[in-house]
């Protein structure tokens, strides 16, 4: 009984034989390449356009250099003062990365405790909410007073800003398991540990990665804000110094550095997500 041939999806191997001469396939393939090109070219166009606009605005309106520099002046500063910029980037990067790891790890652990113990969740979730309601710039001085002027308060601030989004997403991911899959686990007499590691954790991974993307830029913000409260090194300190000195090219160069740092963290998270989550249809990415 040959009943299986109907619903076998088309695999590349069934197509390869006459792909080169099939006009419909060639048209589809060309259209696909055009779409891929567009995806790459258009964002570059947007950024280049913004640069040109910025440069034109400075030139046409005769903006004073200490108010806003031209793109060329910022580029020149990035090259000339790269030693100073990188010396200040490393502490910030370390603080942000440390906060990212610490905050997210803590959020994952707390989420795991919350979904297994409703009582603890009911008691402590309002506390977490209250902490989160305090503005970041208000938390920073408090932590500096308690922890001193080293890296620790900055790492803690970065961790705190990462903690909340990840906690909320992780709890949702661990809880929103397909109810039938849950019943399947019960029919199989699976233990709570087995349900956690074989079902809940995998179910939570897509939620976790959406939170990590948010954390990737938030942790840099946290570190920079931490450095604003009495610090002599770091991108945050550099931004303050440059502002007080009316050194606008250095200020903008520092901004570019911190944005690049956020972008790099974001890129790492996105690559990690692609590497970890391989079971979803391509359209989801």
């Amino acid at each position: 009984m040959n009943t299986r041939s109907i619903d076998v999806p088309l695999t590349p191997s069934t197509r390869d034989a006459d792909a080169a001469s099939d006009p419909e396939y060639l048209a589809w393939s060309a259209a696909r390449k055009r779409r891929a090109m567009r995806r790459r070219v258009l964002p570059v166009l947007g950024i280049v356009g913004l640069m040109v606009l910025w440069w034109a605005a400075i030139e046409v309106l005769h903006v004073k250099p200490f108010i806003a520099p031209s793109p060329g002046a910022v580029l020149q500063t990035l090259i000339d003062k790269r030693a100073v910029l990188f010396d200040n980037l490393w502490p910030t990067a370390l603080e942000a990365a440390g906060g990212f790891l610490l905050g997210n790890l803590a959020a994952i652990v707390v989420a795991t405790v919350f979904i297994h113990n409703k009582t603890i969740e009911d008691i402590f979730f309002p506390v977490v909410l209250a902490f989160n309601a305090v503005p970041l710039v208000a938390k920073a001085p408090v932590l500096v007073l308690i922890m001193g002027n080293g890296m620790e308060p900055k790492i803690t601030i970065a961790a705190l800003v990462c903690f909340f989004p990840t906690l909320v997403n992780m709890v949702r991911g661990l809880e929103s398991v397909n109810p039938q899959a849950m019943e399947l686990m019960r029919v199989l007499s699976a233990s709570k540990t087995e349900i956690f590691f074989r079902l809940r954790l995998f179910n939570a991974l897509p939620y976790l990665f959406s939170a990590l993307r948010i954390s990737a830029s938030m942790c840099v913000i946290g570190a920079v804000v931490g450095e604003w409260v009495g610090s002599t090194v770091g991108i945050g300190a550099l931004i303050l110094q440059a502002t007080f000195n009316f050194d606008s090219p250095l200020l903008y160069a520092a901004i570019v550095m911190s944005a690049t740092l956020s972008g790099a963290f974001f890129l790492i998270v996105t690559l990690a997500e692609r590497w970890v989550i391989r079971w979803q249809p391509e359209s989801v990415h």
Partner: protein
Amino acid sequence: MAAVLSTAAPAIACRDIGVRFFTERRDVTAIKALDLDVAQGEFLTLLGPSGCGKSTLLRVVADLQPPSKGSIRVLSVAPDAARANRDIGFVFQDAALLPWRTALQNVELPLQVGGGAGRKGRRSPMELLELVGLKDRANAYPHELSGGQRQRVSIARALVCDPKILLMDEPFGALDEITRDRLNVEIRQVWKETGVTILFVTHSIHEAAFLGQRVLMLAANPGRVREIVPVDLPDDRTLDLRETPAFVQLTAHLRRVLESC
């Protein structure tokens, strides 16, 4: 009401089973005073309108839902013992495959949790995939499979520990008719090859008549046994059977009973 087909101890014995649910606004009697014996190796289909407790009955047998009164024995023991013993396989309506596992890894799941490693059946997961016709799709993820293929994988998964009882809760309800017909023929073959006892919940009169040796008809509000209809059809069933007078007569009878439920 309870008819016993063989002299051996029944696979499932329900005595005066009742199930009540309470919600804030309602008090639902899903099943009221149900008596039922299912013989070992029997293929019983459960047919009835929505809310007649067909699915609830399966869930009671699988120990997913405790009855609020009455007693139930599954293979002469309590349902939780039968479950712990891996004597029960369950096929859900939406296949319930884990999306991060390939077809083969999904079939292997019952061997990896709940002390399942020691309960390997006669057939390996790969042989079961072959039995349901998916040997060449073993490494495909669920999103790469069609609805029918996913349901076949879940049937293979339910069989991997050689259960004595297979509970199927509207497994083909979401499939198109052609796929459904094909799977109906296949599940009859699986039943014959494995000798497993099957309880099969369906909304379809044709499916109930084509698959079962008996059709348990339930009435709704409260859920109770309306009639148990013996299916007097040859054991070797092909889809052509559905055009024979005997089959048409049977489905006509089922329809009349269903309308009076």
